[in-house]
């Protein structure tokens, strides 16, 4: 922007009277700040201030109905010394890891199929849109629709029983960790497909041909050419999936029948019980953990190469 504007500004400055030139050079120095202003302001109001508020409140004291401005560490103490917190984090990370692995496999396969097997651009777009169809309904509906399907007397169990494959309904299908991960995969697979597909579409087809000419097998092409080049897409998809799962509470609550815990659910519980400072402390810790995870991912893959 500034680069392209520079020559015309310089030429007009030389023609203009001296005072105008000074004003213009001031403007030129201020302009970048003005251009960055709106975004900075938005981030300040909608991101920085709320987060600082959360951090501040996390040090406040509370009882069953009110919160008191204070500076106490009890919220963090109670949080970090409770074995339940650690177990819950472990559980949440487990959900995130399982969901990540499965969505990655699905995402990579689907994207690979779309990018390299479907030859016509029209069909690529059509099939890509087909992938997004489930997203035309709300999250909650897509989640809840699993419940009658997986239940003890649900479609799947009745089907399996009448087909003679099982005599007892499979209990683990619903209100279990299985159900939670299943719903997560269903909800978030597209977040993996899109960025990986995007990365793959940018891969120069000549590279694939060169690899083939060099005698690489199909598997070797995928492993040594496509996978490394799709890494930025994988990283972006991973960030989406991991942060979404780490912060989720409603999927875990509905699909586990309230029996499993996640950090988001813990925070939601605390908020509903008016324990804002405890919830804030929890949120701060969660934010730190997720940031560390994202930073770690960015260390492994340089996504700026792609953007």
């Amino acid at each position, binding site marked *: 922007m500034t680069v392209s504007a520079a020559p015309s500004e310089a030429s007009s400055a030389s023609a203009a009277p001296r005072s105008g030139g000074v004003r213009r050079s001031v403007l030129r120095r201020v302009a970048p700040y003005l251009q960055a202003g709106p975004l900075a302001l938005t981030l300040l109001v909608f991101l920085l201030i709320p987060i600082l508020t959360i951090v501040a409140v996390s040090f406040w004291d509370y009882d069953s109905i009110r919160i008191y401005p204070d500076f106490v560490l009890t919220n963090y103490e109670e949080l970090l010394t409770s074995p339940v917190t650690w177990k819950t984090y472990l559980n949440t990370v487990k959900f995130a890891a399982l969901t990540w692995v499965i969505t990655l496999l699905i995402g990579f396969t689907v994207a690979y199929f779309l990018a390299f097997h479907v030859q016509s651009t029209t069909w690529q777009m059509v099939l890509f849109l087909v992938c997004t169809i489930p997203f035309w309904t709300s999250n909650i509906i897509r989640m809840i629709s699993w419940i009658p399907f997986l239940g003890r007397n649900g479609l799947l169990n009745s089907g399996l029983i009448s087909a003679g494959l099982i005599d007892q309904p499979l209990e683990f299908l619903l209100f279990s960790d299985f159900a939670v991960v299943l719903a997560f995969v269903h909800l978030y697979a597209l977040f993996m497909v899109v960025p990986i597909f995007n990365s793959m579409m940018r891969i120069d087809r000549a590279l694939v041909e060169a690899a083939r000419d060099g005698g690489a097998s199909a598997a070797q092409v995928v492993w040594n050419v496509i996978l490394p080049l799709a890494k930025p897409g994988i990283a972006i998809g991973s960030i989406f999936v991991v942060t979404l799962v780490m912060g989720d509470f409603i999927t875990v609550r509905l699909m586990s029948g309230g*029996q499993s815990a996640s950090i988001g659910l813990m925070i939601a519980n605390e908020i509903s019980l008016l324990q804002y400072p405890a919830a804030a402390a929890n949120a701060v810790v969660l934010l730190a953990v997720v940031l560390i995870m994202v930073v770690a991912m960015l260390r492994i893959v340089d996504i700026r190469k792609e953007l």
Partner: protein
Amino acid sequence: MTETRTGSPLSAGTTTGVSRRTLLKGTAAAAGVAIGSGAITGFPTIWAQNIKNVTLRQFGTGVSNLNAVADKVKEDLGFTLQMTALDSDAVAQRAVTQPKSYDIADIEYWICKKVFPAGVMQPMDVSKIKNFDKIVPIFVNGKLTPESAVAQGTAPHTVGFVEGKDSIKFAKSATQWMTLIPTIYNADTLGIRPDLVGRPISSWKDLLDPAFKGKASILNIPSIGIMDAAMVCEAMGEVKYGDKGNMTKEEIDKTLKIMTDAKKAGQFRAFWKTFDESVNLMSSGEVIIQSMWSPAVAAVRAKGIPCVYQPLKEGYRAWGGGLGIAKHLSGLELEAAYEYINWYLSGWVGAYLNRQGYYSAVLDTAKEHMSPDEWAFWMEGQPAKTDILSPEGKVMEKAGAVRDGGSFQDRMGRVACWNAVMDEDRYMVRKWNEFIAA
């Protein structure tokens, strides 16, 4: 508000103005609220005009936030009642944190114990409540009959009154200032699927019977769930409580240890938080024994699925709710609120609630709005002579059916404890959440 007040004497002519001025002189010491109330009894027509423009915003738990009530208010009283239904936790939260967002709080007594001390509500003058002396004595002195014992927990009468008009301190016995006007209450027990449990259920401890492994559920609202858990543990003989409604840390630990062990052994299929979740769990057969609310049992039965609200030998866990007035209400809106509350106790709503299987605070007036057969079925535990209809006109029970648990006396007379907020509330909630997360 000031506009309407200065407006009304003008429109009513000189006579009104004079008498109002005399009235003002006469009650010089009284506050503006009292003047307003003097005017309403003296000149109802003037107020009746203005009151049509009043909108009262009521919020509360789903049980009593009924659109039918709002419609009837519009019809009978002329003003608009806006209703918002939330879950119990959200109600407590909103009552305290957004006191300006509502005019009338429809809350439970245990929520009242948390909310009222925050100073966001104003007590009501019982002398302005017409049917006050007919309110069921449970809400006044805690005893259904003079000889019955006071149940454990946050019994409504313990948080039903404050010491004075501006007090936020609960009074030990009845005073002129009532925090909540009781509207609706019930005795809760376990709901079962008689077709699937396979044996008679008689005790709270049956919830943890290994025979129902993976088919039991308990509600996940800490203040209520802990009481169900306590009823279970006491019935098992595992824990002896001084007061179930106000447990010590040790009692909380012991109770939740038993529940956690059961959870880890796979006893529970799910935990529920909302009314419809409990209905779905039961009607789908995922759960065959669980903590339940009376209309949820009715909802399961309405689908043609057998469900019994099983009376248990240890007694019931009771809950009660009432209407409270927000602190910011004054003048005409406050009058409208009083009028609404008086109307609430005057029978129509009482009959409506009784027909849903709840109980109303003033029984005499509700009786006048029910048929003798309805009254005999719901309140006296007698077999229905004709089909029993829900307030919407759907058949709830066929002729010949008897209400689970029997009569009002049998059910409300056997309350073992009330939903409660304990002194160790914060500790209990933390431990409860650990149990849920375990």
